[in-house]
């Protein structure tokens, strides 16, 4: 066994072992109630790994492995969209207005990014001559672009609107953001450089990024939620005055 294969296996197995740790932490802190889609995603990733690893270990199952990889990848992409939706719901939890208007803006961003993704798939499909992996790369490239764009849009919204993130939500978004941006770069390069050497190298980088992403999730989920400062001595009248004045403005 050469060093490259050892490194590939270590980078493939380690993040999934850590995902097991993440499941335990999510259960202990009862965070699966707050983030059910993220919890389902983590469980799914572990199940996907077990299936693919078994197929990888059995000789002569290359074709089955390829089909399983494609099918599970599509579901994984769908679940990631669900996680982003969950993150955005949590971010806009404190405002009824944002639940409607900011989410509508996010839908517009999604639509725009989807159009760009489809245009890229049509006009820059890459080298897909008889190689299924190239086709998968194009799909994954488009999905990574949309997801990365959505997470950046969420960060921008929170910055412009003065929204406060909860630590665990921010950690989930950050980890997913790093993962999707590395995915975007690697799958974009995969469509252009489809040789096996290149694909193996890109795989190493993707699994490495996944390890970083899972570590971030564990770190943020383990960290205690900061107790936010609250206004304790503000007279009620003061806040009420501000409200009345703003409402007078908005009613006109």
């Amino acid at each position: 066994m050469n060093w490259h294969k050892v490194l590939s296996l270590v980078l493939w197995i380690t993040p999934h072992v850590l995902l097991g740790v993440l499941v335990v932490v999510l259960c202990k802190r009862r965070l699966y109630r707050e983030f059910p889609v993220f919890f389902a995603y983590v469980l799914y990733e572990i199940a996907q790994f077990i299936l693919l690893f078994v197929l990888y270990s059995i000789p002569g199952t290359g074709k089955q492995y390829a089909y399983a990889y494609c099918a599970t990848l599509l579901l994984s992409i769908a679940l990631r969209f669900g996680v982003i939706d969950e993150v955005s719901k949590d971010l806009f939890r404190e405002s009824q207005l944002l639940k409607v208007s900011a989410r509508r803006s996010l839908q517009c961003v999604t639509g725009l990014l989807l159009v760009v993704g489809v245009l890229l798939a049509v006009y820059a499909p890459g080298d897909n001559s008889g190689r299924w992996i190239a086709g998968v790369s194009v799909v994954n490239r488009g999905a990574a672009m949309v997801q990365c764009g959505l997470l950046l849009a969420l960060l921008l919204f929170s910055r412009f609107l003065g929204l406060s993130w909860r630590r665990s939500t921010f950690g989930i978004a950050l980890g997913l953001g790093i993962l999707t941006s590395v995915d975007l770069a690697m799958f974009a390069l995969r469509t252009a450089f489809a040789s096996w050497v290149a694909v193996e190298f890109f795989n190493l980088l993707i699994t490495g990024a996944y390890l970083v992403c899972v570590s971030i999730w564990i770190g943020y989920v383990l960290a205690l939620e900061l107790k936010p400062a609250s206004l304790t001595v503000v007279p009620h009248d003061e806040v009420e005055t501000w409200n009345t004045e703003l409402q007078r403005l908005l009613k006109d």
Partner: protein
Amino acid sequence: MISTTMIAAWTLVAVAFFALVILLYVALRSRARRFDLEKADLEKAVQAFRSLDIEAFRNLVDSAEEAFLRDNLSPKKFREIKRQRAWAALIYAWEAGGAATALAKIGQAAQRSSDPKIAASGVQLTENAFRLRLQTIGACFHLLTEVVLPDLRSPSLPPLVDQYERAAETLFRLGRFSSGRHGLISR
């Protein structure tokens, strides 16, 4: 010759790198700064309210004034003046937006108060501040269009800018309310 796929690939790599840098920047910044209300936020809001001069802003976006300038100035001079006026109004809108953001943070902190009355008021305050912020973002886009395309005719003020005018007026009033006090926050 470089293929479309190659151009697309390297463009996306650049985009991904840019996204990664932003994410890491935000993560490092959030480590340095606690996710809570800072006194500076409130001071920033109050200062922004005080700096808003609604009469000056109204003058800058007044369509009658614009029509007068269009009739009495050469097209070249008009474009120059219009750009300057739109830019000044844009700065006003930007400042008001910053104040609204700070106000939203104050509102969010008030929501966490143990006093149910303050918490309920915080909810309202946050909603109104977010609404105000969204309006100022729209106003900024509108004014930016005027900076880029000064010849674009806008016979009457669009509702967006009208709303901004009202927003700025309220913020100005709020600024005056706060000016005599020693700050609203204590921990």
